[in-house]
């Protein structure tokens, strides 16, 4: 996975978020403050505009740039959460112009720890972590077991999709949805959904690369 691929992934994520903006907002209308799609799309539009300035940067700097753009433009909780995630991933990719499967997994792990730290959240609270954590565990054990990144990530995406389904069955204890208590049951979490989109998009780009 080289710099070009990373830039292609980011561009594809921006496109996907824009396409899914209304659906994500709809999900957030059900159990949140109804801004997830709009906010993330605003953030990734700013990221897209910054893409040309990333062309000659290393992967660490690119991811950090994405994080900074999200923090300063999203305006909702997904800004500091995804912003921290990308920045932390950027930290472990500092100076790198390509990533091995192991390094990709390490970056994802750092990103997830960033989300946990910023959101003071753990798995099972109906948040993006319910998609990200199972995805990471599956990817890591796949790679450890000798799978290549694309195959491991494909399994990780399946795990994330299951995680999104799982969020329908639990009560939110973090974020705006936690105000609804048991009324949050039956609804899928918008943050977990956008996390799934990012992983799916990464897989699609890697498959095409």
């Amino acid at each position, binding site marked *: 996975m080289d710099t070009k691929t990373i830039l292609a992934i980011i561009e594809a994520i921006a496109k996907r978020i824009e396409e899914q903006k209304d659906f994500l907002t709809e999900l957030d209308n059900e159990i949140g*403050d109804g*801004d997830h799609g709009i*906010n993330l799309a605003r953030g990734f539009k700013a990221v897209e505009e910054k893409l040309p300035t990333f062309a000659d940067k290393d992967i660490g700097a690119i991811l950090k740039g994405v994080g900074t753009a999200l*923090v*300063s433009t*999203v*305006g*909702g*909780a*997904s*800004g*500091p*959460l995804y*912003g*921290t995630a990308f920045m932390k991933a950027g930290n472990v990719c500092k100076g790198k112009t390509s990533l091995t499967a192991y390094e990709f997994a390490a970056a994802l792990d750092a990103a997830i720890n960033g989300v946990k730290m*910023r*959101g003071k959240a753990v798995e099972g609270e109906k948040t993006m972590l319910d998609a990200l954590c199972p995805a990471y565990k599956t990817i890591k054990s796949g790679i450890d077991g000798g799978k290549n990144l694309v195959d491991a990530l494909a399994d990780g995406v399946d795990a994330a999709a299951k995680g999104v389904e799982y969020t329908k069955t639990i009560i939110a204890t973090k*974020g*705006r949805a936690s105000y609804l208590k048991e009324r949050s049951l039956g609804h899928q979490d918008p943050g977990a959904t956008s996390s799934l989109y990012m992983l799916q998009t990464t897989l699609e780009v890697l498959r095409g690369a």
Partner: protein
Amino acid sequence: MVGIVIVSHSQKLAEGVVEVARMMAENASLAAAGGLEDGNLGTSYDKILAAVEEVYSFDGVIILMDMGSAVMTTEMILEDLNRPNVKMIDCPLVEGAVLAAVESAGGRSLEELSELIKDSRTANKF
């Protein structure tokens, strides 16, 4: 005098809290950081940072927030600023702001103020 920044998803709410706090302490150093740049609901990193700089002095700044992204964005600003005399406090926004305004105008230090404001967490209205 310790500066006070009120962070909210809503520009109206942030300005309103500043307004209410000022009723009690005209001279308090207060700044509102509410909503996004275009006035829509949300929290803006740049607006919060600008508000901190507006009321910043060596005496320090305390930041009070409503919830969610207001808290997390403020936390990131504190990490980026890395100034020990800029603090965020967990308290009810209106009560905390009134207390902060009164006590900062009364010359309390940042440390004293931080402790006092925490009392508003358990203060009953009736």
